[in-house]
């Protein structure tokens, strides 16, 4: 850090100034000039927060996708279907038992088991045939989407937010000061704050597992050189199944989260598949930190897009993707060229 400051004094100064400006923008009430250019602080900050929480949800979906891709070179285009399946299952469990929390372990295990079946019965047989695997996942996504439509119909479902997460929470961020001098704090849905916390915990846990444990060592080795790892006599098939199961389970759990703060309906599977695609393309394929960064960028772009140019919000996301592809095809944090 010190070395960086000494080497690049101007850049460091710029970073400090920008950080201070950002901090001031977040914490202090805005003068009229800023409000005139950016909009009311309450609206803008809510948008930014929504972008971050949406990014958290995208991260939950995309991290499994990128992990599976990084290790097995399998573009699982049925990932969105696993998300939707998890959401519907979570809805049924939460609806029947009345327990929102209970849905999480059950859905994780159920969707992970489906992942095990897929990896063991289907993808193991066509290992190395990337294109064929991708085609199979497309076929699976068509079939699963139609089965889900068959069972749950075209209705839109929303999972009820449990009582302990319902209602708003006041964040220590001043949005405005009333005429009598009392500060108005930003109110934000409690459930979204917890989703953000959960995503950060999941992300950090994944990073720790991958970088600090033996199984993580196996995964990293597999990402770098699959053939060599297999040749070393390590149980690579077991690692594959575990990673696929974990990625699938995570997508399922993300379905519950998405079903709680958005809604579940046919078509959501493609939406989240595309979000995952864009996230990993922007962040870099196979990289967990890349997925986090990509999810954050895509989430923010989507929400700020809705605020400033509602007609073209979706297009922003894809413009970012095109720009990344044009200037850094391996993704922002992608290692391979």
């Amino acid at each position, binding site marked *: 850090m010190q070395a960086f400051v000494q080497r690049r004094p101007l850049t460091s100064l710029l970073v400090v100034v920008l950080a201070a400006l950002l901090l001031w923008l977040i914490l202090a009430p805005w003068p009229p000039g800023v409000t005139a250019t950016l909009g009311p602080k309450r609206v803008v900050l809510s948008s930014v927060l929504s972008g971050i929480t949406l990014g958290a949800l995208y991260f939950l979906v995309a991290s499994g996708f990128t992990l599976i891709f990084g290790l097995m070179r399998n573009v699982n285009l049925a990932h969105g279907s696993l998300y939707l399946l998890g959401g519907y299952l979570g809805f049924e469990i939460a609806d029947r038992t009345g327990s929102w929390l209970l849905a999480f372990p059950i859905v994780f295990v159920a969707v992970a088991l489906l992942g095990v079946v897929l990896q063991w019965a289907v993808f193991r047989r066509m290992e190395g045939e990337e294109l064929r695997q991708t*085609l199979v996942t*497309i*076929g699976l996504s*068509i*079939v699963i989407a*139609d089965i889900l439509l068959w069972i749950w119909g075209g209705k839109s479902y929303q999972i009820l937010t449990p009582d302990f997460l319902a209602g708003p929470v006041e964040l220590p961020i001043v949005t405005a000061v009333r005429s009598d001098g009392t500060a108005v704090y930003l109110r934000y849905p409690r459930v979204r704050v917890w989703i953000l916390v959960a995503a950060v915990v999941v992300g950090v846990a994944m990073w720790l597992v991958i970088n600090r444990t033996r199984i993580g060592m196996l995964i990293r080795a597999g990402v770098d050189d699959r053939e060599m790892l297999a040749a070393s006599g390590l149980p690579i098939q077991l690692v594959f199944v575990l990673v696929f199961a974990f990625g699938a389970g995570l997508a399922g759990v993300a379905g519950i989260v998405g079903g709680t703060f958005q809604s579940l309906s046919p078509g959501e599977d493609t939406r989240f598949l595309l979000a995952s695609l864009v996230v990993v*393309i922007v962040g870099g394929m196979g990289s967990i930190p890349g997925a986090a960064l990509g999810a954050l960028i895509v989430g923010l772009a989507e929400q700020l897009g809705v605020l400033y140019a509602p007609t073209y919000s979706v297009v922003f996301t*894809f413009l970012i993707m095109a720009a990344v592809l*044009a200037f850094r095809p391996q993704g922002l944090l992608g290692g391979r060229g």
Partner: protein
Amino acid sequence: MAVAGETRLSAADAPFGALGRVPAAVLAVAAVLLLMPAFANNFILFQVFGWTFILGMIALSLMFLAGYGGMVSLIQMTVASLAGYMVAILGPSGTEQISLGLPWWINVPVAILVATLFGTLVGALAVRTEGIYTIMITLAIAAAFFYFTRQNYTIFNGYNGFTLVVPPPLFGIDWRQPTAFYYLSLGMAALAYGAVVYVARSPFGLALQGVRDNARRMAALGYNVVWHRILAYSFAAVIASFGGILLVWQNAQIAPGTAGIPAVIDILVIAVVGGMRHPIGPFIGAFIYVLLSAFAPDVLTAFGLAPDRFKLLVGLGFLAVVAFSPDGVLGLWARAAERRRRRVDPLTGTPR
């Protein structure tokens, strides 16, 4: 990407296996197709064959890219829809506040030009990547186009799209009459088919196949690999645009759903099911797809299922094809021909 050689979808250099040596069969098919209006009813002509030729042309453009160029692009349906949209925007349509009402000899060429330009641009972006990455990127761009048309009301008229987009009454013929439309789509499909066969054997097509097989060696030989790939996208975009214009004329309307993700995936399904060994594959795939969608209710009821499970049938069929015959129906044909040949004793020439 060390295994790219094994995953390639086609061996397109072998011209058509057994059927190539039997021109009689080709002639018979051509005769049946030309005489079809004599014995088929309007539904068969317009819905089944018209749609088969259109979907076949769009899938053919994908087959050209994937089979000869080794690039599986999911953008072809989007290019086709853009051409359809341009015809609706520039020419006359039911949405008069947007459509410019230009005559056909302006709106059709401009539509093809715009769509080809779009296809080329996407290609220029997509050739920076390889294999499965190409699928992901083209899929993402296709999705962006779908969402854009759905949200943009000033040019693409959002959810509603355009209605009453009909072919121009050229030579005093209403080209939406089943027989006229059948011949129109048949002629365009035959032209597209011939163009692909011709280009595949031209120096450009041969170089493209060389790029597919070993890009590095072609680059060392002095070929511009990137431009060959981008030009392949342009050529494919031209074919897809013609298909898209026919599609909007057949439906007489266009809406975002035309370029939706399911439609984009369907084109891939058609091309893979038909087979990417030879340009006839996409048309076979399209024929199977159209037959399935036309008669799925009957088939499904026969299996005791609800008649609206068409997609399930398509998905399962696709899975079966990918699992058992990765080169589609054409692959099945080639293997059957191979087996027939083996049944003859190679020494004496007599059946064993």
